C-alpha cells in the first residue's frame, strides 16, 4: 500500500509482520501531527483509534536525537477511567516492544504506588498515561511548569464522554495551563460518534479572543432558548457567559478526522411471547427468551439502566441458568476489586454474558462480544450506539443488538431508537458553559503551583473552550470567592486563602492551604455511600466488604429485611457509622427497594420520534399486534397526542380525580412539572393529593375534579418564575446540588488531614451551611452555581421550559369517565414511589408520634 510509505521503515515492517495495513485515519492523524495541527478523531470502536492517537508520538520519539539533558514528558494521555489508562499502557507496550523502541510509557492513577509516583516526578517517562484528577494534582504542583516544558502532545481518550461535564470543564482549564507551559503542544481527541463534532472541537481547541466584534448573525452557535430562559428566571443577575459577548472566539483550531464507519449495526426489537406488558421496568416477562438468546451467542453484554435492574436481571437469569453458563454482574455499587475480576475474566474470554450498567459503556475493547442486549428502553440514541459498539470490534462485520422493551411505551421508544440508529441519527447535545465552581478550584490550583497575574490568568482561562466567554466580572467574583469566600459580610480579609504579593502577583496563603487544596482536587462528586460488609449483631466486627451503596438505600430497610445485592440475597443487620452489616440469607422473596443508580431521562430527540410515530399510523405496522391494538383503542376511547400537542386526560377513579398528561419529556422534567403543578393546584383549592411520573407520562390526583380548570393558565411558562424559585429553595435537590458545588469549589472538604470525614457526616453540615447562606446571601456565587446545576441536571428546567413553550395553546384536553388505555401503565405505578423531601419527613415524624400515642393508650 503506497500510503504506508508515510511510515518510517521500522513501523512499515511492524505493520507488515502483523499482517495489517495502516488505516486511512491513522495516516491522516500522522499527517496532522507532522503539520503541527491539533486533531479530533471520530471513529467507532475497533478501528485502531488508540493506535491512531499514539502513532505520531511513537514515530516522533523513535526519530528523536539523543540529548544530553534528560527529556521531560513527550506525550500525555488522559482517560476518564483509571482502568483504561492501565489497559492502554499494557496495549501500548506491544508495539514498543516488538519494534524495539526506546520509549518509556507508564501509567499513573490514584492506585499507583507512592514510590513509583515519586520516581515519575524525578524521572518523567516519555509517555505518561493518567486521569484528569491526577493532572489536576500535577497542575497544583510548584514543579508543573518545568515538568511539562517538553510536552509535545496531549491525547484525550473518550472525549465524547468527558467534554459535557464538570470534569470536562476542569480538563479544558488544565489544557490551557499546559499550553502555557508548552506553547507548541498539540491536542488530540479520540471520540466515539457524536451528533455535532464541532462541540467537541470547540471544547478541545485553543480559543484566541479576537478584538473585533463579529459581524451580526455569526454570533449564535447553537443557543438553547429554553436553557437561557430558565437561567434568566433563576438568576436575575444573568448566568455567566451564556449570552455571548463581543469579541467572539475564532474557529476552533482542531482539525476533524473521521474514521470509516464500518458496517451498519443489525438492531432487532424482541417481542417475547408475542406480547408486550402494559407496564413495568424490568422486562421480567422476556427473561427466559433472553436466556435462550444468550445461549446462542458467543459472549453477550446485557445492558440495563439502573443498578436495581442489574441485580434483578442477574438474579432471574441465574434462576434460569440450568446449564450453569458463566454469567457475571457489573455495576457501580460493587467493590472495585469485584469489578476488576469480572473485567479480567471478560478479557480472557471466560464469560458468556455480563449484566451491566453504564459502568461498561466505555473501556477497553473486548474482541469476543458478539451481541449487545438492551433490557428496557435505551433512553437515548447516542448512548445506545456506544453500547452497540461494544460488540464485534471487527469493522467489516456488523454489530448485533437486541432491544427488549419492558412496557408498551418502551416498545414505541425501542422502535424509535432502532430506526434512529439505522438512519444514523444521534441525540443532539447542548453547548456547554464552564461551571464557576470548577473555575474556583482551578484558580486555587494555579495559586498552589506558582504566583499568577490576574489579567494574564483571565486571558489564559478564556483560551479554554467552555470558558471562552467568561466575563471579567464573573472571573473577579470567582477570585474573590477563592480568596475571601465572596461574602458580603467582609469577615475573612485576614484569613484569605490567596493573597496578592508586593509584586502584584497572587499566591496561596501558606503551605497548609496548598496541602488542603491538593487533598480535594477533582470534579467527581460521588454520592455519600456506606460500605456493605458481612457481619451481624449490634457490635459487629469489620467483615469483608462486598460493595458500596448510596446512603439512602438502607434507610428504607429495617434490620431483619432481606434484599438482593451483588447477585445474592442478604439480611440487613445494622447500620453503624459508614458501614452497613449484612449476612447471607436464604433465597426467599427478598424485599427489593429500588435505589438510585443512573436513571437517564429519555432524550429529547427520541421523545420527538416517539410522538411522531404515534401520529403516523403507517409506522404502526412495525409494532406488535397488541401494541397496535392499544394505540387504536386509545384513539377511539380518548385521543392520540399530535406531534406538537400535549394530551391531557381528566377522569374520576374511586374517590379521587386524576389528571394524566403525556409530555414525553423524561422523568426529571415531569417531576419538576408535577411539583410546580401541585403548588398551583393547591392554590386553586383543588386539593392535590399526590403524583407519579415516568419518562412519558405524569399523573396527578386530587380531592376535587380538575375538569374545568383553565389549562393554558395552569401550564403557563410563568410557573418557571416565582413558583420554581420558591419550591427550589426548599428542595432537597438544591441541597444536593449545593453540596456538590461546595465540594468542587473547595468551600467544604472531602478529606481533612488526619481525619476521614465520611459522606454521611458531610451531608448534615452542608445542609446547615446551605440554609444559612440562602437566608443571608441568596446571590452568593455558590448558590448561583447550585441553581444552575439543579436547573440543567436534576430538574431539567431547560427542557421543561422548551416543552411549555411548545404546548402553549396546544393542550388537547379530553374529559373521560374512566381510565384510558394510555393511562393504564401510569395508574399501575401509583404507590410504588416514595415521595422524597421535607413534607415526607414531617409525615414520618407525625406517624411516629401517633404510634407512641397509640402505645400509651393501649
Amino acid at each position, binding site marked *: 500500500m503506497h500510503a504506508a510509505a508515510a511510515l518510517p521503515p521500522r513501523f512499515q515492517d511492524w505493520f507488515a509482520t502483523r499482517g495489517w495495513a495502516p488505516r486511512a485515519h491513522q495516516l491522516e492523524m500522522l499527517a496532522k501531527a507532522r503539520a503541527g495541527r491539533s486533531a479530533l478523531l471520530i471513529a467507532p470502536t475497533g478501528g485502531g483509534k488508540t493506535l491512531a492517537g499514539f502513532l505520531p508520538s511513537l514515530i516522533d520519539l523513535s526519530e528523536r536525537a539523543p540529548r544530553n539533558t534528560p527529556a521531560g514528558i513527550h506525550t500525555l494521555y488522559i482517560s476518564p477511567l483509571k482502568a483504561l489508562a492501565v489497559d492502554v499502557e499494557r496495549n501500548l507496550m506491544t508495539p514498543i516492544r516488538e519494534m524495539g523502541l526506546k520509549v518509556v510509557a507508564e501509567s499513573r492513577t490514584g492506585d499507583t504506588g507512592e514510590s513509583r509516583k515519586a520516581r515519575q516526578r524525578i524521572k518523567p517517562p516519555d509517555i505518561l498515561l493518567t486521569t484528569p484528577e491526577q493532572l489536576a494534582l500535577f497542575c497544583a504542583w510548584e514543579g508543573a511548569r518545568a515538568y511539562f516544558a517538553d510536552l509535545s502532545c496531549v491525547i484525550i481518550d473518550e472525549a465524547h464522554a468527558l467534554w459535557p461535564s464538570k470534569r470536562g470543564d476542569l480538563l479544558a482549564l488544565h489544557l490551557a495551563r499546559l499550553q502555557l507551559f508548552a506553547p507548541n503542544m498539540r491536542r488530540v481527541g479520540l471520540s466515539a460518534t457524536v451528533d455535532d463534532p464541532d462541540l467537541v472541537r470547540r471544547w478541545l481547541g485553543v480559543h484566541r479572543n479576537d478584538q473585533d466584534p463579529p459581524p451580526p448573525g455569526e454570533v449564535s452557535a447553537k443557543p438553547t432558548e429554553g436553557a437561557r430562559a430558565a437561567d434568566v428566571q433563576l438568576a436575575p443577575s444573568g448566568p455567566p457567559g451564556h449570552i455571548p459577548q463581543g469579541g467572539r472566539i475564532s474557529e476552533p483550531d482542531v482539525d476533524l478526522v473521521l474514521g470509516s464507519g464500518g458496517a451498519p449495526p443489525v438492531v432487532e426489537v424482541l417481542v417475547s411471547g408475542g406480547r408486550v406488558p402494559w407496564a413495568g421496568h424490568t422486562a421480567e416477562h422476556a427473561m427466559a427468551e433472553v436466556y435462550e438468546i444468550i445461549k446462542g451467542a458467543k459472549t453477550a453484554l446485557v445492558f440495563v439502566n439502573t443498578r436495581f435492574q442489574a441485580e434483578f436481571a442477574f438474579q432471574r437469569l441465574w434462576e434460569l441458568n440450568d446449564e450453569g453458563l458463566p454469567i457475571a454482574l457489573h455495576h457501580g455499587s460493587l467493590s472495585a476489586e469485584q469489578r476488576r475480576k469480572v473485567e479480567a475474566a471478560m478479557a480472557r474470554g471466560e464469560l458468556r454474558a455480563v449484566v451491566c450498567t453504564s459502568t461498561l459503556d466505555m473501556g477497553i475493547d473486548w474482541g469476543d462480544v458478539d451481541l449487545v442486549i438492551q433490557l428496557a428502553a435505551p433512553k437515548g440514541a447516542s448512548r445506545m450506539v456506544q453500547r452497540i459498539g461494544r460488540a464485534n470490534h471487527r469493522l467489516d462485520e456488523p454489530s448485533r443488538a437486541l432491544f427488549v422493551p419492558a412496557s408498551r411505551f418502551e416498545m414505541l421508544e425501542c422502535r424509535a431508537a432502532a430506526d434512529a440508529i439505522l438512519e444514523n441519527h444521534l441525540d443532539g447535545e447542548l453547548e456547554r458553559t464552564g461551571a464557576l465552581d470548577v473555575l474556583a478550584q482551578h484558580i486555587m490550583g494555579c495559586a498552589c503551583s506558582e504566583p499568577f497575574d490576574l489579567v494574564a490568568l483571565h486571558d489564559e482561562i478564556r483560551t479554554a473552550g467552555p470558558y471562552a466567554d467568561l466575563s471579567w466580572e464573573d472571573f473577579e467574583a470567582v477570585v474573590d470567592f477563592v480568596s*475571601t*469566600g465572596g*461574602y458580603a*459580610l467582609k*469577615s*475573612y480579609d485576614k*484569613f484569605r*486563602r490567596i493573597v496578592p504579593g508586593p509584586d502584584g502577583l497572587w499566591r496561596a*496563603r*501558606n503551605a*497548609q*492551604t496548598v496541602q*488542603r487544596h491538593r487533598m480535594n482536587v477533582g470534579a467527581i462528586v460521588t454520592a455519600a455511600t456506606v460500605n456493605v460488609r458481612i457481619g451481624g449483631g449490634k457490635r459487629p466486627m469489620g467483615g469483608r466488604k462486598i460493595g458500596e451503596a448510596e446512603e439512602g438505600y438502607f*434507610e*428504607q430497610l*429495617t434490620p431483619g429485611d432481606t434484599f438482593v445485592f451483588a447477585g445474592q440475597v442478604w439480611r440487613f443487620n*445494622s*447500620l*453503624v*457509622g459508614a458501614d452497613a452489616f449484612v449476612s447471607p440469607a436464604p433465597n426467599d422473596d427478598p424485599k427489593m427497594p429500588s435505589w438510585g443508580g443512573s436513571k437517564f431521562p429519555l432524550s429529547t430527540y427520541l421523545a420527538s420520534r416517539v410522538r411522531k410515530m404515534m401520529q403516523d399510523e403507517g409506522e404502526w405496522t412495525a409494532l406488535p399486534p397488541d401494541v397496535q391494538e392499544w394505540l387504536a383503542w386509545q384513539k377511539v376511547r380518548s385521543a392520540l397526542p399530535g406531534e406538537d400537542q400535549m394530551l391531557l386526560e381528566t377522569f374520576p377513579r374511586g374517590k379521587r380525580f386524576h389528571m394524566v398528561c403525556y409530555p414525553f419529556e423524561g422523568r426529571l422534567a415531569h417531576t419538576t412539572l408535577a411539583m410546580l403543578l401541585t403548588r398551583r393546584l393547591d392554590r386553586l383549592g383543588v386539593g392535590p393529593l399526590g403524583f407519579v411520573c415516568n419518562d412519558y407520562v405524569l399523573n396527578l390526583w386530587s380531592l376535587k375534579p380538575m375538569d374545568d380548570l383553565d389549562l393554558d393558565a395552569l401550564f403557563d411558562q410563568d410557573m418557571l418564575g416565582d413558583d420554581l424559585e420558591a419550591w427550589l429553595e426548599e428542595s432537597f435537590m438544591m441541597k444536593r446540588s449545593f453540596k456538590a458545588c461546595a465540594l468542587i469549589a473547595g*468551600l*467544604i*472538604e472531602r478529606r*481533612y488531614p488526619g481525619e476521614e470525614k465520611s459522606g*454521611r*457526616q458531610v451531608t*448534615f*453540615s452542608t445542609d*446547615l*451551611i446551605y*440554609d*444559612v*447562606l440562602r*437566608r*443571608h*446571601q441568596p446571590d*452568593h456565587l455558590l448558590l448561583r452555581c447550585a441553581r444552575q446545576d439543579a436547573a440543567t441536571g436534576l430538574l431539567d428546567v431547560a427542557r421543561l421550559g422548551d416543552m411549555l413553550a411548545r404546548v402553549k395553546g396546544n393542550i388537547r384536553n379530553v374529559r373521560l369517565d374512566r381510565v384510558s388505555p394510555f393511562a393504564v401503565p401510569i395508574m399501575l405505578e401509583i404507590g410504588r414511589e*416514595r415521595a422524597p423531601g*421535607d413534607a*415526607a*419527613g*414531617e*409525615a*414520618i*415524624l*407525625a*406517624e*411516629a*408520634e401517633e*404510634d*407512641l*400515642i397509640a*402505645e*400509651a393508650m393501649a
Partner: protein
Amino acid sequence: MTRFESNPCGGLRIDLAGTSVVLRGSGALWIETERTLVVADLHFEKGSSYAARFGQLLPPYDTRETLDRLDREVTALSPSRLIFLGDSFHDAGGETRLADGDAERLAGLARDRQLIWAVGNHDEDGPRVLPGEVIDEASILGLVLRHEPQAGLQPGEVAGHLHPAARVSSGRGSVRRRCFVTDGSRLILPAFGAYTGGLNVLDDAFSGLFCRPVLAAALGAKRVHAVGMKSLRPD
C-alpha cells in the same frame, strides 16, 4: 413513660422532676413560672473559627442566624431571664471575631432582662466584654441547669453539651432531626446554634444518663414531635 402534652404554640409540655416546662419547637426550654428561657450550645462564630484555624471560609452568617432565632423566641415570650447553657462561643477567640452588628445585638439581649452565661467546655471563661453574669450552674425551681450532664442519678438536671439528634423511622423512610431527650428526671437540650450538628441519641454518649425509656422530642417544621424508643434508629 414520660408524660407529655402538646402546647398551643407547637411545643411540648412535660413534667420534669416535678416542674412543668415547655420544650419549644426552636430547641429552647421555657420555664414559664420563672419566665426563664434556656438555650444550649449556641456555638457563636463557629463559621469563623474554621477560617481562623484551617483557612476554610464557611459562610460567616451563623452568628447572625442564631441571633435571629433567639430574637424570635425573645419576641414571642418576653422572658425576664435568658440562660445560655454553655458552649455559647465555639472557641475562646470567638468573642473578638464578632461582626460589629452582631456584638451589639448580643449586648442588647441583656438590656431588659437578666442574661446568664453558664460556661461550657468550648468557652470555659465566659465572655470578656459582653454583658451578663457568668456562672458554672444555676438552680431554678428544683432544676439544676449546667452545661455538661453529670454522671450518676441527677434528678432535675437540665444540660446541653451532647447535641442530641433523633433518626426517626417509619415504613416510609427515615428522617433525622435535632431533639430534646428526657426520661422525666433529666433533660438534655438540643444544640441551638445554626452550625451545630447532632449526635444520635442512641450513641454510647447517652447511655447511663437515663434510667427509664427515653422520650425524644424531635424538632419538626411547625411543631415538636414526641418520639418513643421504638421509632428511633441509629445512623
